[in-house]
């Protein structure tokens, strides 16, 4: 449906048929990041061996596993709608191969990397018994790359980044995960103080760099152009 309305000859409102798909893409993207944050948080709680009288440890593990599948469903919806949206030139290969898209290639590429990592994490978790614990754990460490990459993908490509509540939601997700990582670093590996210190330093640097980038990038006017959005001049077949 294409709706064109003219308000007394003074205004032109253009609503395209793919707008609902775009809304779904944005909504599922935001929900996915929250679900991924929940999955990450539960994984970190498992890592610090959290349990309580009403919350045994196996519940954390089971919920972590189930939530990751729920997140995958919403992530799938996010990807399907993004590809189905005829406005943005995102194809199926763009979903899995990073940095080949013509639409904001770098930021979409980060999403591809996060998706690939998530698929790898889930597949290796499904075959964990056959893979062996050490190999599985090695792959599972990729979650510490997957989640931040997904968050930066959302901040870099998202059209809602500058909306206050979206920014607040993202900051809350980051604060939760950072808090749990600090807890993990404080509790785990008692014999590896050096690794813990290096991890804490890396975390601080990543947070600092991300904050500076966010303030000077997505939160500034003109970010879309700098992000690599195709310009109208480059569009073929446009009258």
């Amino acid at each position: 449906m294409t709706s064109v309305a003219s308000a007394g000859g003074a205004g032109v409102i253009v609503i395209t048929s793919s707008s609902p798909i775009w809304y779904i893409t944005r909504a599922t993207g935001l929900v996915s990041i929250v679900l991924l944050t929940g999955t990450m948080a539960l994984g970190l709680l498992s890592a610090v061996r959290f349990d309580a009288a009403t919350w045994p440890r196996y519940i954390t593990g089971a919920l972590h596993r189930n939530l990751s599948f729920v997140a995958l469903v919403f992530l799938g919806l996010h990807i399907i709608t993004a590809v189905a949206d005829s406005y943005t030139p995102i194809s199926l290969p763009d979903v899995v191969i990073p940095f080949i898209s013509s639409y904001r290639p770098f930021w979409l590429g980060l999403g591809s990397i996060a998706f690939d990592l998530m698929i790898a994490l889930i597949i290796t978790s499904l075959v964990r018994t056959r893979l062996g614990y050490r190999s599985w754990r090695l792959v599972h460490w990729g979650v510490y790359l997957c989640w931040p990459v997904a968050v930066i993908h959302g901040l870099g490509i998202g059209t809602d980044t500058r909306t206050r509540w979206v920014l607040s939601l993202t900051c809350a997700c980051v604060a939760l995960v950072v808090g749990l990582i600090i807890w993990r670093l404080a509790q785990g590996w008692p014999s590896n103080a050096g690794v813990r210190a290096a991890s804490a330093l890396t975390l601080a640097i990543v947070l600092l760099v991300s904050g500076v980038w966010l303030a000077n990038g997505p939160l500034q006017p003109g970010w879309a152009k700098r992000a690599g959005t195709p310009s109208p001049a480059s569009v073929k077949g446009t009258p």
Partner: protein
Amino acid sequence: MRRDDVRYAVAAREDGLRRVRKFTVTIGSAATACCAVLFAAFGHAATAGSSSSAASSSGSGSRTSGSAGGTSSGASQGSRSQRNGASQGSRSQRNGASQGSGSQSSGASQGSASQGSGGSLQAPTQAPAPTQAPPQSASGGS
């Protein structure tokens, strides 16, 4: 371990896993509901933004729709219809084409909206789609 203890432990675990399944379904339902709410909010914002933009531009003598000056600086400015930095909207502009313009459109919408009433007409600042947008992005002046 006595057999009763084993049974009790197994039953407790089954009960816990049942709770996890219930909780998972609840989370999935809540996430779906959140998606629906966000969908409605984005659509509502687009409609409200477009309406307010049309109303504000109707008395100004110049025809402008879309980006409230063509900038992408506000998350909720104008018709909220830019994809390039603003957040909500009817997606008539998504791709950064409107930055700094505000008074010109390009692509399919150019020309069509500048016909008619004279004065300092401004075409709708609708950016063309990178791909097959023209069939969807029809625009019209009076």
